[in-house]
């Protein structure tokens, strides 16, 4: 597969990185030499120094031989135009990133008229993810598989102090659940029975939805578990705007704090039923005045990762049960788990996952990555012609970085052991470190080139 990415910003770079891991031939076009030098030193891709909007550039690349073009320059208009040109020149599929809310109403028209196949909006996608989390009863980030029959949650071990210092096989009351991974000091570890749990580990637990619910209740005993009614959003960026709009529709009381007066006016014009506060969101007095301690949730959605993280921590300190921070850069990925913020969402990862869905094909429910892409969870339907059909897990000899978390056989959820056999049409949920992705593909890809046999379903929280 051949892919062109125009614009090597944060999203473009992340996409290129993920695609190279997926064994895709990537060409990156950017007009900044420095950016391209960086890409060249870190990724095995072809870089082209040019303006992607020039027809000659696309032609000389032979864009008609490409399967996909993703336009991620910082201008919505440029992205639209590039995709449209590429499509007309014969590129099979095009994806444009469009962020301006003004265009959101007319996306279908744009797509249809200009021949763009997919439009991704990182801000909207992030707002949707935030909304999903806020409306759920869980206090922890979770993801659903096999149409809701299987769930995975992750939480810091400090919520279950009795687990600290124990080996996995010694855990009590843990039937029907499986710890697929441990995030320790920013590294993902695939555990086995004799792995010991340490303080400050974040564990990823997978199991039947009912079992996960019980676990959630056990952990949340000490946490007030009530529905979200009041939300404070810090920052009236696009994400803040989309989120406020969505929450208002869900009849939630939203307070939005924004520093820029002009922006406040714009927001108050565009949004109904939202309390918009003009002021410095990092001013704790202001937040207290606006009743931060009575909030059910706090969302840090300014343009600064540091501000979002620190203010989410501050809110946590003031007793807000749910806190979310928007994080755009990778810098903090490895320490966030230890900070005690429930959810840190990265628009880049969310968007990248959405685009990966398109690339992998099939009916994908949700795609996202663990720890900034160090690992992923995949839901696969076992095709008849796969070589692994009829084999037990022992016989498969999967590498250490791949764990089959759940097998759903005839609608029954099984937490497998070495003797469990894989049958055709089973659905399995696999946890996999990104280093092992090619191996995973080898195991579960149909030899004939996959007739629906692979239903890739990457999942889980952008941590």
């Amino acid at each position: 597969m051949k892919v062109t990415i125009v614009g090597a910003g944060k999203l473009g770079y992340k996409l290129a990185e993920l695609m190279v891991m997926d064994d895709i031939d990537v060409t990156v076009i950017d007009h900044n030499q420095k950016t391209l030098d960086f890409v060249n030193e870190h990724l095995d891709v072809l870089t082209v120094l040019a303006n992607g909007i020039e027809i000659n550039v696309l032609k000389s690349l032979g864009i008609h031989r490409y399967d996909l073009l993703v336009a991620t320059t910082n201008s919505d208009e440029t992205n639209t135009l590039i995709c449209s040109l590429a499509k007309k020149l014969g590129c099979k599929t095009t994806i444009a990133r469009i962020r301006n809310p003004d265009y959101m109403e007319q996306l279908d028209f744009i797509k249809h008229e200009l021949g763009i196949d997919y439009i991704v909006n990182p801000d909207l996608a992030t707002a949707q993810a935030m909304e999903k989390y806020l409306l759920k009863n869980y206090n922890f980030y979770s993801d659903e598989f096999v149409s809701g029959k299987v769930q995975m949650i992750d939480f810091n071990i400090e919520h279950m102090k009795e687990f600290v210092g124990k080996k996995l096989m010694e855990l009590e009351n843990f039937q029907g659940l499986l710890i697929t991974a441990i995030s320790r000091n920013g590294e993902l570890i695939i555990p086995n029975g004799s792995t010991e749990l340490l303080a400050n580990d974040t564990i990823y637990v997978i199991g039947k939805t009912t079992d996960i619910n019980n676990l959630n209740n056990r952990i949340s005993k000490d946490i007030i578990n009530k529905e979200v009614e009041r939300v404070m959003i810090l920052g009236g960026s696009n994400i803040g705007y989309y989120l406020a709009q969505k929450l208002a529709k869900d009849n939630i009381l939203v307070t939005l704090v924004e520093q820029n007066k002009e922006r406040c006016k714009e927001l108050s014009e565009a949004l109904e039923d939202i309390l918009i506060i003009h002021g410095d969101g990092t001013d704790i007095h202001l937040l207290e005045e606006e009743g931060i301690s009575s909030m059910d949730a706090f969302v840090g959605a300014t343009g600064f990762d540091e501000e979002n993280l620190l203010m989410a921590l501050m809110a946590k300190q003031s007793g807000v049960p749910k806190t979310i921070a928007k994080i755009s850069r990778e810098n903090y990925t490895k320490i966030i788990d230890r900070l005690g913020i429930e959810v840190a969402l990265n628009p880049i990862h969310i968007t990248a996952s959405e685009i990966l869905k398109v690339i992998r094909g099939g009916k994908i429910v949700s795609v996202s990555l663990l720890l900034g892409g160090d690992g992923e969870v995949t839901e696969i339907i076992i095709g008849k012609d796969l070589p692994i059909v009829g084999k037990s897990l022992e016989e498969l000899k999967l590498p250490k970085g791949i764990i089959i978390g759940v097998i759903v056989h005839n609608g029954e959820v099984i937490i497998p052991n070495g003797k469990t056999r894989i049958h055709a049409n089973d659905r399995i949920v696999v946890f996999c470190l990104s280093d092992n992705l090619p191996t995973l593909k080898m195991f579960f890809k149909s030899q004939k080139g996959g007739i629906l046999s692979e239903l890739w379903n990457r999942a889980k929280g952008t941590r």
Partner: protein
Amino acid sequence: MNYGIVLRVLGSILMLEALFMVPSLLISFYTGQVDRFAFLITIIITGITGIILNRRKTPDRHIRPKDGLAIVTIGWVLVSIFGALPLYISGSTSTYIDALFEIVAGFTTTSAIIVSDVESLPLGILFWRSFTNWIGGMGILVFTLAILPALGISGFQLFKAETPGPIAGKFVPRIKDTAKILYGTYITITIIEVVLLMLGGMSLFESIVYTFGTVATGGFSIKNASLGAYNSNYIHFIVGLFMILSGVNFSIYYSLFKGRWKEILRDEEVKLYFVIILLAAIAIGINLYKTSYTSLGLAFKDSFFHVGSVITTTAYYTTNFDLWPAFSKSILLLLMFIGGCAGSTAGGMKIIRILIIFKVIKRDVLKIFHPRAVSPVKLNSRILPSETIARIYSFAGLYLILFALSTILISLEGIDLVSASSAVIASLSNIGLGFGIVGPMKSFSDFSQLSKLFLSLLMLLGRLELFTLVALLAPKNWKREI
């Protein structure tokens, strides 16, 4: 520095080298000459060392720029050290230093010779010498990249450090595929030339050896009189043609294969390369005809062949050009500095750098008259970043400084200035042939052991384009982090 990956890649390189020696081993066993056991022993030693190094565990597979430098530089030194063993063990050279000099000259495609009577050497050794030409021409690491999947993602550092020219670029997304295309092109050109030479009456062995020398722009011969030993215009023409073709950037052949003619015709470097060859050859041809030659045709034949031979830094010769008039020799000396195109197997400063230097001069002259003129330096209608230009200038500066200082050092041998300076430039530009005592039919055997080592270092410096080696030798870099 990431020692694990450095040692591991070095191990792979040595294992490859052991493999590269197998054809020579087979030849030596077939002919039953004295070099049989030399190859057997070397292959065992090299292979085992390689396997030991390669068994290192490498949790971190990322090759950072510094690691890339270390791998390329140490890699080249190691293959030379091990590659010299057969020559020494078989007694082809009297000392190990001589063997090392000869094999460094092989890998760097310098092909300066120590043994003046090459015809006395066993066939296996002759093949090995020429084969080092061939491998070194396109690059040991480029070959490693083409066949080793493990290096994939971070291989660009290695590629950049080994490929000649100021702007190393891939032409397909994956470094592995780029390396494969390069070697594919290289092998294709090699096969074509072997066939053409055989049609000209050479034996298979001879045509392979001379092809290696030509396409790698190396120049190792198996006759004492180089190509002068073959009295055939056809062979001279084929070798001359392929020398000049091998001095062209190999990515051009990929564009050719892809049918992108426009790109090739627009390429300023290639255009300048052929213009220089044409002008130099015509000037020398007329000069020769006016002075010593009686036939215009012969004058132009000799002038074209030797201009091609010198500018591509191959250094095959059909006649003793040291006897030519000073005008012709001066032009050849100038060509020795220039060298071939970037991304080719040729040495020297590379046409592209000369081109850019002249463009900057032109710009600066314009600036004298119009101080406020905005005129960025462009190459193939693209603006060059000022860092690239600065790098080219410091490269040229370093090249000349090295040349001057080395000439002073070499002249301590008590030889004339022309011999000393041409010995230095012959090494630095990877030509292997100069004037005076290092001219045609002569050899480097009279130099002292120390000078031979020093000249070997110059060859490596020239092949790896100065900065790779200089950066690693700079003591400050070592103090900061090893």
